[in-house]
C-alpha cells in the first residue's frame, strides 16, 4: 500500500469487524519533533492480552477466508522502516487502540495520501457508526465528528443521503487543506 491513508482505511475495517460503534482517528504531524503519528481507537470487542501480543505476526488472525492477516504486520513494518514503532493496547469488551509513530522526513516514509477521501468513505459506507477525525499539523488542528452532524440533522436523515454526503466530502477536504500546507 502506497499511502498511509490506505492503511488507516484497512485498520478501521478491523474496528468495524470488531463491532465498534465509535471509531476515532487522530493524525498528527510535528515538524519540530520530525514525527508523524497515527492513532486509531475503537470501542469494539477488543482482544485477549495474549492474542494482542502476537497480532503483529501475520499468523495471528481470526479471519476465516484466509490463513494470514496482513493489515497490522504491514502497518508495523511501514512504521519501523522509518525509525518509528507501533504499539497496541486492547481490552476485551472495551476496545482497541493502535498507535504508530513515523519519522516524518525519513526517505522511506510513504505519503499520507488522500486522508479526506478515506475518512469520507468510512463515514459514508458505515452511516450507522460514528467517527471522530482529528488532524493536527504543528499548532493547527481540524476536527470532524459525525455525532455533531447527526445531532444537527436529526435522526430521520441518514449520513449517506446524497446532499449530506457531498457536504461531508467538501468539509473534510476544506478542513484538511486549510491546515498549514495541508497533509
Amino acid at each position, binding site marked *: 500500500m502506497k499511502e498511509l491513508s490506505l492503511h488507516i482505511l484497512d485498520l478501521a475495517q478491523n474496528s468495524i469487524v470488531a463491532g465498534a460503534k465509535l471509531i476515532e482517528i487522530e493524525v498528527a504531524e510535528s515538524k519540530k519533533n520530525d514525527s508523524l503519528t497515527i492513532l486509531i481507537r475503537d470501542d469494539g470487542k477488543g482482544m485477549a492480552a495474549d492474542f494482542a501480543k502476537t497480532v503483529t505476526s501475520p499468523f495471528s488472525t481470526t479471519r476465516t477466508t484466509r490463513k494470514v492477516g496482513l493489515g497490522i504486520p504491514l502497518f508495523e513494518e511501514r512504521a519501523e522502516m522509518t525509525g518509528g514503532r507501533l504499539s497496541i493496547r486492547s481490552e476485551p469488551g472495551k476496545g482497541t487502540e493502535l498507535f504508530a509513530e513515523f519519522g516524518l522526513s525519513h526517505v522511506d516514509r510513504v505519503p499520507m495520501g488522500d486522508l479526506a477521501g478515506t475518512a469520507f468513505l468510512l463515514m459514508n459506507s458505515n452511516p450507522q457508526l460514528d467517527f471522530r477525525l482529528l488532524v493536527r499539523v504543528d499548532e493547527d488542528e481540524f476536527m470532524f465528528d459525525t455525532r455533531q452532524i447527526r445531532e444537527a440533522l436529526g435522526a430521520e436523515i441518514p449520513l449517506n443521503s446524497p446532499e449530506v454526503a457531498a*457536504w461531508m466530502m467538501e468539509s473534510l477536504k476544506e478542513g484538511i487543506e486549510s491546515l498549514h500546507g495541508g497533509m
Partner: protein
Amino acid sequence: MKSLKDLEAIRQRTLQDVGIRNDRKGTRIVIGMATCGIAAGARPVMMKFVEEVANRKLQDVAVSQTGCIGMCEFEPLVEIYAPGQEKVTYVKMTPEKAARVMSDHIVNGQVVGEYTIGSVKK
C-alpha cells in the same frame, strides 16, 4: 468554509425526499475492503460509486463495505444486491468499470456480463 449551520437547509430539502425513499426498496453496492481489496485498488472504485450515486441523486442506492469476500485474486470485488434480482459479483474492478456498472446495471438494470465473476471463472 463549510459550517454545521449549512446542515439545517440540507435537512429541510432531504426530509422531502426521504418520504419517497422509504417506500422504495433499495439497491446495495457492497465493496470488499479487507487488506487484499484495498491493496488492489478498492478505494478509488468505491469513491467512483459514491460520486455517481451523489451526482445522480439516487436516494435509494447505498454503497457499503465489507471485509474479505474470500477471493483475493479477483479483488477489487463488488457485489450488487438489487431488489428482485440475484446477487451479482463483479471482479477486478476499476473506476472506469464502476462507471459502466453504474449506468448499465444500477440505473438501467442490465448486468455487465463481461465484468462478472462468471466470465472469468469459466
